[in-house]
């Protein structure tokens, strides 16, 4: 029994930690796709976020110290991510670009810009390790709850809980506020939205920039919790996994949260499996592919058909239908 609690104690925080950047990024994806814009560029947005966060972190740590630096880094990364995503918005909304193509371009561009600038700034292909990374803490009061406290609130990150809370905030925004109502109407039936005076293009701009904001934060958090520096391979596929979480979660913030957590859990199970006596003897490749296979099974068995926003992928051209 205590062995089991130990395992939970090990798996849950690690799952949460891994899920956090995915949650942030997937929430961004939800915004964008709810407005009707496919965002295959989440990977690029994360790369941009990781790049900005690491550079800011390296530059500001000496001035701001270890408490403030990570947060400032994440915030700046989010803002730059939002600005960067506006490129996707310009292309897809204003210039009716194919959304998949534009997203692919975002991925290329982010890595290109990131590495190019690193070379210009530091004269090398990757940065040094940062000193102002995110640090885990015990959450006051909550950590003392028996059993659950140590599992969920000891040695955890504020960002983990921020991500979970944000998922609910995003849910509130999308499903309860006028902004959310309009956002969804734009993704479902832009002509209907247009006919009641909603500025479809403006809504889409906002949504895509929000995806950059969240994706940038996601990338930043990944860099500040895991990699600790920025290089070619810092973000390698997390954005695509986040995209999968958006679809897996049926374009719903809580769904995306669940999908990201599921993924984090599956991944940490597979990593930690190597250390659990029972699973030790399974060839490691099965553990390695387990998260992905489990995701497919979950999709087939539990989730099934997901209904995308109706006008996802179609540019809005006023007057046509």
């Amino acid at each position, binding site marked *: 029994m205590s062995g089991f609690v130990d395992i939970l104690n090990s798996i849950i925080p690690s799952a949460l930690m891994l899920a956090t950047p995915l949650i942030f990024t997937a929430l961004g994806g939800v915004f964008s796709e709810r407005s009707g814009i496919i965002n295959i560029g989440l990977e690029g947005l994360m790369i941009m976020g990781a790049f900005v966060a690491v550079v800011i972190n390296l530059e500001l740590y000496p001035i701001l110290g270890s408490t403030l630096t990570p947060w400032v880094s994440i915030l700046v990364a989010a803002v730059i991510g939002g600005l960067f995503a506006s490129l996707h918005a310009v292309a897809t909304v204003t210039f009716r670009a194919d959304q998949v193509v534009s997203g692919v371009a975002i991925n290329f561009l982010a890595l290109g810009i990131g590495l190019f600038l690193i070379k210009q700034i530091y004269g090398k292909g990757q940065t040094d390790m940062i000193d102002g990374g995110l640090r885990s803490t015990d959450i006051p009061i909550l950590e003392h709850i028996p059993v659950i406290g140590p599992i969920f609130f000891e040695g955890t990150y504020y960002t983990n809980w921020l991500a979970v809370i944000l998922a609910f905030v995003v849910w509130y925004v999308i499903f*309860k*506020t*006028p902004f959310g*109502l*309009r956002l*969804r*109407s734009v993704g*479902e*039936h832009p*002509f*209907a*939205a*247009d*006919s*009641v*005076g*909603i500025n479809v293009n403006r809504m889409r701009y906002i949504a895509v920039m929000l995806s950059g904001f969240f994706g940038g934060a996601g990338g930043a958090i990944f860099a500040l919790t895991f990699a600790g520096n920025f290089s070619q391979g810092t973000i390698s596929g997390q954005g695509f996994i986040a995209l999968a979480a958006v679809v897996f979660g049926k374009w719903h913030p809580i769904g995306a949260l669940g999908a990201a957590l599921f993924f984090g859990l599956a991944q940490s199970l597979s990593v930690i499996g190597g250390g659990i006596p029972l699973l030790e003897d399974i060839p490691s490749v099965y553990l390695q592919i387990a998260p992905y296979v489990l995701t497919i099974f979950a999709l087939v068995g539990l989730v099934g058909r997901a209904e995308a926003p*109706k006008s996802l992928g179609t540019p809005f051209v*006023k*007057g046509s*239908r």
Partner: protein
Amino acid sequence: MDYVIEMLDIRKEFPGVVANNNINLQVKKGEIHALLGENGAGKSTLMNVLFGIYQPEKGQIRVQGKDVNITSPNIANDLGIGMVHQHFMLVDTFTVTENIVLGSEPKKGLKVNIEDAEKEVKRISDQYGLKVDPKALVRDISVGMQQRVEILKMLYRKADILILDEPTAVLTPQEIDELIQIMKSLVKEGKSIILITHKLNEIMSVADRCTVIRRGEGIETVDVSQSSTSELASMMVGRDVSFKTEKTEATPKEPVLEVNDLVVKDIRNVDMVRGLNLQVRKGEIVGIAGVDGNGQSELIEAITGLRKAESGKILLNNQSIMNLKPREIYNHGLSHIPQDRHKYGLVLDYPVAENMVLQTYYQKPFSSKWSLNFKEIYNHAKRLIQEYDVRTPSESTLARSLSGGNQQKAIIGREVDRSPDLLIAVQPTRGLDVGAIEFIHKKLIEERDKGRAVLLVSFELDEIMNLSDRIAVIYEGEIVADVKPHETNNDELGLLMAGSNKKEGEA
């Protein structure tokens, strides 16, 4: 005389088309003003100009006597103009209330104040006698109710000038009557209405005046009480039109389609067809009359193989076709003019020619073992285009850029040309102008006279009465009456469709 709306010398061009050429439209306060014209005459375009969706190349718009420049629907809204579009502008996944308040939501703190909104919707809907359920999801409600939601949207925004673009094309007779009542009560409250419709009897019964448009040109504005349907029709088409479809007595022979005790479920797993029996014989047109949602779609989908039937029998030429694949069913001798031509009838991004072989492309002569024979495909299309009077620049024009009427003619040409034993036609004339309707009706009768069995589904009683040799009334998934058109009348049919016969029949 003060007009609420004056559109003077409006000109609107699309690449290659002059949709509106110096059209004038003047609407008086408190009137129902009909706008009449063939498909593609330019009615929707004119209204889109008034509503700010298109900017005219030339011309002047006055609202309440003031010159205005309507550059967006927002401005139209501010001027008290509301529009119900030909294709509804409703978000399927939203509730009725959400749709109505979208864009001008009442707030409580950060939240949409949905409770207040629902109350307001209820209040307005009671005031004008529009029965809607504020909490229902739009995708769950009938087309008629969706229409009322659209009207409520305008009223919620306090519009005084209401544009209704072909509002009745999708409604059942009962719903049309209700809508007419609603329009009448709206004008009583001081609203003005511009009504686009192809149905002349509707114009006769509600409109005060009517402006006729032909090929983008304004022809005339007449007082409806001083005019007649035939006069309006000839003004619109430019020639005399006959309304009563000419046809001889049918001489039905052996049965082609037999449906016995059929049960079909819909997506939600509810029985929509419940033990239905139906027979269609060679050389007759059987019309299925009924209010939308009584199992018509499920019945047709089951016969054509698009939906699985639960139990019962479907025989075509004495062979069971139940739960076969659509292609196998076609090969048994069935053609199907589908209800939704954009969704089912056509691949809009394929050229007309390729749409004309949508079911037969893999057969000789259109295809050899592997590859398509484009020469044959295009020749085939050329012939059909001519035979069925499809107005299209060429066979290689994308189906998307044809007008609705011509898209429909293309489909009918394709389906009829396969010389089926059974032709199923679902709402074949929906949204079409009288000229096109006349043509299509003639074709269906010709087919009957060639000895084919025709199954017609329509929500328009006139069409059913005119065309059918036998009328099967469908109610709650069963055929509740089988009558001859000359032995009944609209009122009786209306009652049957409302289910009044059911208990008597059983008793």
